[in-house]
């Protein structure tokens, strides 16, 4: 097994599958808790999940995970066998969720290449004692079940009772002592397999230990002393030896031929030893077990209805990223061919036809690859149920989570970046937004607060909206806090409501005086903003006192390919996301003027904009320095406008966004650049960050 430990693909598969199962389990538990009871189906399903995790983790030698899943499996085994029992739902959910969390932590450790060495014994003990409590409650019932009249069902390994009266019909008697291999486990069942097979050669035999199924210690006894079976048969010594040698996991076989009398003696001695009561009990519990089997069967049949057939394969993310890159390269290469300077101005009808066909196919490939990477937000959204549950329980607030549009899809990379921000916002909404039940009743609001999590498509963006019907933001409080922390960037009176609210996104801002366990662990809304901005999104907030707040995350559908307008400054090329461009034009001499501070401004339809000379900002040498010789582009993002001056427009193109190389990122202190891309002719173009540029303008 050790050589498997470091086996990457197996570890990867193990982690992937276990994470999925854990997530599935979490949803099951939470939906059960909501509906107030565990149905038989879900108990079976949970049992099955824990069983799978236990098995897989033990194969991977992950003892902590296997121990916890084993405990939970035991718990649900009991629930499955005692379905009539009224169970304490909430306590079970708590225990299982704790177990889930523990497993999650261990999986995280393994993902990071650490050892999963969490201490599970404490939770195991609690599950055990919880189970023990339930067992005490039900034990009376079990006893009464056991005492129910049994229909005399002859089990073959008890058959010697009958045979005792009949004179033996076999001539040879044998005594076999069998030792199984170490760690083969379930020695009692292995012995049972032998007993089962012995029936093929004789019907006169007995064995020690006698009770292989119900005696929990029988496995241990066999491990120590071996399994002894005495039999009478017509077969020869060799035949009997051959028979036993077929035993799987056999370590040692000792086979002796014994006298008839010895056989009888031993058998009678054993008979006497068997207390009559014990005998009946074992028989009864045998019956009991039969019942259990039928239960299992029903259970298994019912699982059918809930499991769905999987038509999905899992692909390594790295491969998808690579594919995406290649498609990007292909789009560029295609441009290089079709717009090749060598064929410029030539009449090539057939070439154009073929080129169009190629363009069509490559754009289809691009769409497909993008769609492969698209994942619905549902998994991220559903996770929030857990957070809402935990928080409302701890804080004593009543909160209902409403989820809308969870089927909305975004790029896989985007999901990774927005999970944490969404979680933070939901926590904030419950912690700071939603009031306590008394407070809500006093305000004539329903006792139960509602947090709405909504996703929808809006053009090239996805909007994720976190809405609560709580107390809303307090303007005075925000201003006060901003004053205290020196965050005011302009006169209070001049600030719009929106600007005031937006101050909560500034680093170092937190209106809650007491940092609670859930929100405000020293990280504030500014982290949310930072996370969203790294993927080119934006955050905005709106609030009405006593009616609640709405926080909207605007997230690009994908990070990889955007529509861009290429511009030239000197000999360098830049790309502006087309979506942010409001207009481009060659300015008239008379619309441009200079203010007393030396700032150059342009008047467009009565509105004044300061002009940002890109060649100055980016330190590029160009011959075009007069505004009337170049092009003015007005771009807008998040309600902020910049007016850029460049040499000329090159044209519009879909560009593949690549991250800036490290050395440029270090130089990019102005935050004017968002990334880079390759143009059709193979030259490099830098993608301008409009928000970043707007900030520079603000500072100027």
């Amino acid at each position, binding site marked *: 097994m050790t050589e498997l430990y470091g086996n990457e693909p197996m570890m990867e598969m193990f982690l992937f599958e276990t994470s999925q199962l854990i997530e599935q389990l979490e949803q099951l538990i939470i939906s059960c808790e909501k509906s107030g009871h565990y149905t038989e189906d879900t108990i079976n399903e949970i049992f099955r999940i824990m*069983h799978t995790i236990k098995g*897989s983790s033990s194969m991977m030698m992950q003892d902590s995970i296997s121990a916890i899943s084993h405990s939970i499996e035991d718990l649900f085994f009991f629930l499955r066998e005692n379905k009539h029992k009224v169970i304490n739902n909430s306590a079970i959910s708590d225990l299982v969720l704790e177990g889930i969390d523990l497993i999650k932590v261990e999986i995280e450790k393994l993902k990071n290449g650490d050892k999963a060495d969490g201490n599970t014994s404490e939770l195991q003990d609690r599950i055990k004692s919880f189970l023990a409590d339930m067992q005490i409650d039900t034990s009376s019932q079990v006893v009464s079940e056991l005492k129910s009249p049994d229909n005399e069902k002859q089990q073959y390994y008890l058959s010697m009772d009958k045979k005792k009266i009949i004179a033996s019909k076999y001539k040879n008697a044998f005594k076999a002592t069998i030792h199984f291999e170490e760690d083969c486990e379930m020695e009692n069942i292995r012995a049972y397999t032998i007993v089962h097979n012995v029936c093929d050669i004789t019907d006169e035999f007995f064995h020690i230990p006698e009770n292989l199924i119900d005696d929990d210690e029988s496995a241990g006894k066999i491990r120590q002393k071996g399994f002894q079976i005495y039999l009478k048969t017509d077969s020869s010594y060799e035949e009997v030896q051959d028979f036993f040698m077929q035993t799987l996991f056999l370590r040692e076989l000792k086979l002796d031929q014994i006298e008839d009398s010895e056989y009888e003696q031993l058998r009678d001695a054993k008979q006497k030893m068997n207390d009559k009561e014990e005998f009946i009990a074992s028989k009864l519990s045998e019956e009991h077990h039969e019942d259990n089997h039928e239960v299992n069967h029903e259970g298994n049949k019912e699982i059918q209805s*809930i499991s769905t057939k999987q038509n999905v394969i899992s692909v390594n993310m790295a491969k998808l990223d690579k594919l995406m890159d290649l498609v990007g390269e292909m789009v560029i290469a295609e441009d290089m061919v079709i717009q090749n300077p060598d064929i410029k101005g030539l009449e090539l009808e057939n070439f154009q036809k073929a080129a169009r066909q190629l363009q069509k196919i490559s754009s289809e490939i691009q769409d497909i690859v993008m769609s492969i990477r698209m994942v619905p937000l549902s998994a991220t959204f559903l996770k929030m149920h857990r957070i809402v549950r935990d928080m409302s329980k701890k804080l004593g607030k009543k909160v209902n989570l409403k989820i809308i549009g969870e089927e909305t899809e975004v790029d896989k990379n985007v999901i990774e970046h927005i999970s944490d921000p969404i979680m933070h916002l939901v926590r904030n909404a419950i912690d700071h937004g939603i009031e306590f039940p008394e407070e809500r009743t006093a305000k004539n609001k329903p006792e139960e607060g509602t947090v709405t999590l909504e996703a929808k498509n809006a053009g090239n963006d996805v909007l994720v909206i976190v809405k609560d019907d709580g107390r809303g933001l307090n303007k005075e409080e925000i201003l006060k806090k901003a004053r205290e922390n020196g965050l005011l960037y302009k006169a209070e009176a001049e600030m719009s409501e929106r600007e005031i609210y937006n101050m909560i996104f500034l680093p170092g801002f937190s209106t809650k005086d007491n940092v609670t366990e859930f929100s405000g662990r020293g990280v504030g809304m500014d982290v949310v903003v930072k996370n969203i901005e790294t993927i080119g999104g934006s955050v905005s907030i709106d609030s009405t006192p006593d009616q609640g707040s709405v926080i909207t995350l605007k997230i690009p559908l994908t990070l990889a390919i955007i529509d861009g307008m290429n511009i030239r400054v000197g000999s360098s090329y830049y790309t502006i996301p087309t979506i942010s461009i409001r207009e481009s034009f060659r300015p008239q001499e008379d619309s441009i003027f200079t203010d007393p501070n030396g700032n150059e401004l342009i008047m467009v339809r009565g509105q004044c904009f300061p002009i940002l000379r890109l060649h100055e900002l980016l330190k590029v040498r160009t011959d075009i320095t007069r505004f009337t010789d170049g092009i003015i582009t007005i771009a807008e993002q998040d309600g902020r406008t910049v007016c850029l001056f460049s040499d000329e427009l090159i044209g519009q193109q879909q560009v593949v966004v690549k991250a800036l190389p490290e050395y440029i990122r270090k130089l990019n202190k102005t935050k004017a650049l968002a990334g880079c891309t390759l143009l059709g002719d193979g030259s490099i173009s830098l993608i301008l960050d409009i928000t970043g540029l707007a900030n520079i303008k603000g500072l100027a």
Partner: protein
Amino acid sequence: MKRVLIVDDASFMRMTIGMMLKKHNFEIVGEAENGIEGVRKYKELNPDIVTMDITMPEISGIEALKQIREFDPKANVIMITAMGQEALVREAVMNGAKSFLVKPFKEEQLINVLNKILGV
């Protein structure tokens, strides 16, 4: 080369067993992720031996075992199980399972059992 069908709902287990077997020159003729598929693939592929998980959705490994043995009374099926399933394993043995492996099992255990059953 002996032909093996792996029936297990956990892809991790299918992968693990598959890798162990491939190392020892077994041919994995098929994999199934539930009992129904397992039975269907058995009929279709006629493998020399089947490794069968017990706890699975759709129909359990035991039900699949029964159906396979009904179709082919000589079928070699070994059960893959874990502690806590003694009663089910017993039922499997009664229904003709050739042997069983208890997770976590070692590579050599798996190979030995298969070789012995197949008389290699």
